[in-house]
């Protein structure tokens, strides 16, 4: 009923998908792919279930590609992409999509920025024309930037400043990553958002928005034969931009465990978490990326997981407990565990219990039955993922803007199915054994 219109929403949904549906399904999506002459990759996932398409353009640029001092510029640009171009008046893009019964949105992460419309298949031509137009013809003025910057500041207030746990999460990222740009918030630090102006935003746009730095993904009632001429006509006509190398500062070895404690008067439910830097599909010891998903599922992926059984059910000291890991990042990923204590339970006890469970995994390993169960659940969830329109486009978009390939996505289930108790233990040891970590406590401020 309630419809919230949000250009960019930070929700854990996708991470849960990473836990449960971590990439995709062995040869289930069956996409077709081709390359335009100007270097723009195209992926088509045909699905005739309904006369509808989702049309997405993904740019290989995100908050982790921003220059020092301009955090938030990728996200603010995403907002400003809905203003006018040389060919379209401000607001005309959204008005045209709506008038044609389409829905649209956009989102920004550390590694990518994406724009999409969902619309009747016979309007695909129109949205492709308009999306291609704003890839190079964007016009923005000071008069537009100022109120939009205020909008983003309100967005920051509602997502971060108003929510103690979100404030703490920003601090955690800045502590966990000493030098890698994932330490910066995607939405930006407030003082740096305030300093963004037209010139800097346009320079960013001109550098990164070009066909060879973008990927076109269309899912739905269309096939390659139909899409290719349209893609060539609209996107193929755009000249190639400069080659972009994603040079990011890298992480030095951690030398210390870090502990963050935040007390806040509006916290009513304390919580505890611990994070380790982990490999992703694209960074670090990548050979462990699949096994780590199985490890996370076993330690803390659901009602059958070790942390839930021990802390929530058996000892009943926590209201919730679990683990999280995703492998999609272009850079280093994070392996985390968390718990929320029941009233009256000391944080120290929670920490001790979670740490004991991790030690147990490192000492005794995981059982063949646990591995089998985790693989089975992940396999099942892959079928559900296929049933949800838009998931395939999403999965390919994330993978292809973050160093992955179509083949890797399609081979995900085979890799997961090949995980054994031995490879799971090796992966767990590589990330958790004797490694430095960041522990965070969110606490209620004692009333004075």
């Amino acid at each position: 009923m309630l419809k919230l219109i949000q250009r960019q929403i930070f929700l854990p949904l996708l991470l849960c998908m990473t836990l449960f549906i971590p990439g995709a399904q062995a040869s289930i999506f069956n996409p077709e792919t081709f390359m335009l002459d100007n270097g723009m990759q195209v992926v088509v996932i045909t699905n005739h279930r309904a006369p509808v398409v989702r049309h997405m353009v993904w740019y290989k640029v995100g908050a982790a590609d921003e220059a020092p001092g301009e955090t938030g510029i990728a996200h603010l640009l995403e907002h400003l992409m809905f203003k006018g171009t040389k060919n379209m008046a401000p607001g005309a893009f959204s008005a045209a999509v709506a008038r044609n019964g389409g829905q649209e949105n956009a989102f920004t992460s550390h590694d990518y920025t994406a724009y999409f419309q969902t619309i009747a298949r016979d309007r695909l031509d129109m949205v492709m024309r308009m999306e291609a137009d704003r890839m190079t013809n964007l016009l923005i003025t000071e008069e537009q930037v100022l109120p939009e910057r205020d909008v983003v500041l309100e967005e920051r207030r509602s997502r971060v400043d108003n929510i103690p746990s979100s404030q703490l999460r920003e601090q955690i990222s800045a502590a966990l990553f000493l030098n890698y740009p994932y330490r910066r918030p995607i939405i930006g630090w407030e003082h740096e958002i305030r300093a963004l102006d037209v010139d800097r935003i346009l320079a960013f746009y001109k550098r990164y928005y070009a066909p060879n730095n973008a990927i076109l993904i269309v899912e739905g009632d269309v096939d390659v034969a139909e899409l290719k001429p349209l893609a060539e006509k609209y996107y193929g006509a755009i000249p190639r931009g400069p080659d972009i190398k994603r040079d990011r500062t890298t992480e030095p070895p951690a030398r210390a465990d870090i502990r963050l404690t935040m007390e806040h008067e509006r916290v009513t439910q304390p919580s505890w978490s611990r994070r380790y830097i982990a490999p992703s599909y694209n960074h670090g010891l990548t050979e462990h990326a699949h096994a780590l998903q199985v490890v996370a599922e076993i330690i803390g992926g659901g009602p059958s997981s070790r942390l839930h059984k021990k802390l929530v059910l058996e000892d009943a000291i926590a209201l919730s407990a679990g683990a999280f890991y995703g492998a999609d990042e272009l850079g280093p990923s994070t392996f985390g565990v968390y718990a929320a204590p029941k009233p009256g339970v000391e944080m120290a006890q929670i920490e001790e219990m979670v740490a004991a469970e991790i030690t147990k995994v490192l000492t005794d390993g995981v059982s063949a039955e646990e591995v089998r169960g985790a693989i089975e659940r992940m396999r099942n969830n892959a079928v559900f993922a296929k049933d949800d329109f838009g998931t395939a486009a999403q999965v390919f978009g994330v993978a292809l803007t973050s160093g992955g390939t179509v083949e890797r996505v399609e081979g995900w289930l085979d890799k997961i199915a090949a995980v054994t108790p031995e490879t799971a233990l090796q992966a767990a040891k590589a990330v958790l054994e004797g490694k430095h970590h960041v522990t965070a406590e969110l606490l209620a401020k004692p009333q004075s």
Partner: protein
Amino acid sequence: MKTMTTKTAFRHLSIFVLAIVMFSFATIQSAYAVKVERVVSDGGIVAWLIRDHSNPITTLKLSFRGGAALDPEGKEGLAHFVASTLDEGSGDMDSNAFQKALDDRSITLRFNAGRDTFRGTLRTLNQHRDDAFEYLRSALTEPRFDEVPLTRIRAQILSSIKQDEEDPRHRASQGMFETAFQNHPYSRPKNGTADSLKSITPDHMRQFVTERLVRENLIIGVVGDIEPETLKIYLDETFASLPKSSSAWALKKITPQLTGTVKVIDLNVGQSAIQFGQPGIARSDPDFYTAYVLNYILGGGGFVSRLYEEVREKRGLAYSVYTYLMPLDASAAVMGGAGTANERVAETLETVRDVWKKFSEEGPTQEELNDAKTYLTGAYPLRFTSSSAIAEMLVGIQEEGLGIDYIDNRNGFIDAVTLADAKRVAASLFQPNNLSFVIAGRPQGVVATD
């Protein structure tokens, strides 16, 4: 989301622990060449079905009429508590065994309580369908309500109630319900209070199950890879043993007591949550579709509504600003919301009031009406998102008694709205003098009148 975290709406906790900042968006899908079948089992259980053989999955949504508004005085939160514990053990399976059985088979089985209905979802791979329907039957007819899981879930609900108390949006919304529905069950907190939850016993919950989860209140929608003949068998096996009927109830009709007041709920936050509302229009009103189109133009539309333009686009006062129609069984309201820095709340209020007044006086333009119609009719197919969203629609259409051909007819109702209708209904529906505000935060320059 994980079963574990959704059970008691542990949003804040789960968000806290997630390191990766991500986004979500409305997953949008489309109409199939839709054919709705009315399936009646030998035992007389009715379900509406859309067959879809794309994937080996079956999704069922159910709704029992009567929701949290019927919770007895002092037992607020009963329906929600039952919904949160119905999947915590039944028959000869205790909570752990039941949850493990679901998890091992990747079966989604969950319940939730709205103000007017008690709803359930079952989603399963076809290879586990026999088990899935059996677990649903068992949960509905022989739940155990064992002490251990009850204690655990009660603690989770108490925690989430406390968290809601510090959430500006929740406080503003609850404040609006208290103003609008004084002395009526709709004003009470849906999930209960610390006191009410502690007073609820397993006996109360068992009584709820026998009295309320009965066949005459039941509505079912099914989508997926299943044949009508197979569904009939499942319907009888699953629902035939439910009690047939319940004692009648009556929820007193109420016009929202919204008379143009401004209420401030003090919370120490930098951005105030603003809720606004006024009396609305019943779902059964002949002018409902006109009101629906008007709401889209005023504040229901994506990046193109009047409020979006004035509040966000021109003035940068809020990240999101929206309105919606809220028809309830015993009332109706037009509701809206925005979030604005404390210093600028007064300006947001003034802007919303001005837009409201102008829209009431002038109604939409012909162009706005045309654009609204082409959007609403063109986007209708996109609403058929996943199997689960379609099944939910099948339930909703039955609840409102809209007829089995509604999906085919619905766009016709939108197209039939004329400019004269729109202006007439805008003038009567939108009442700037009754537009009331509840603000949770520390707004500046705002005079509270309530």
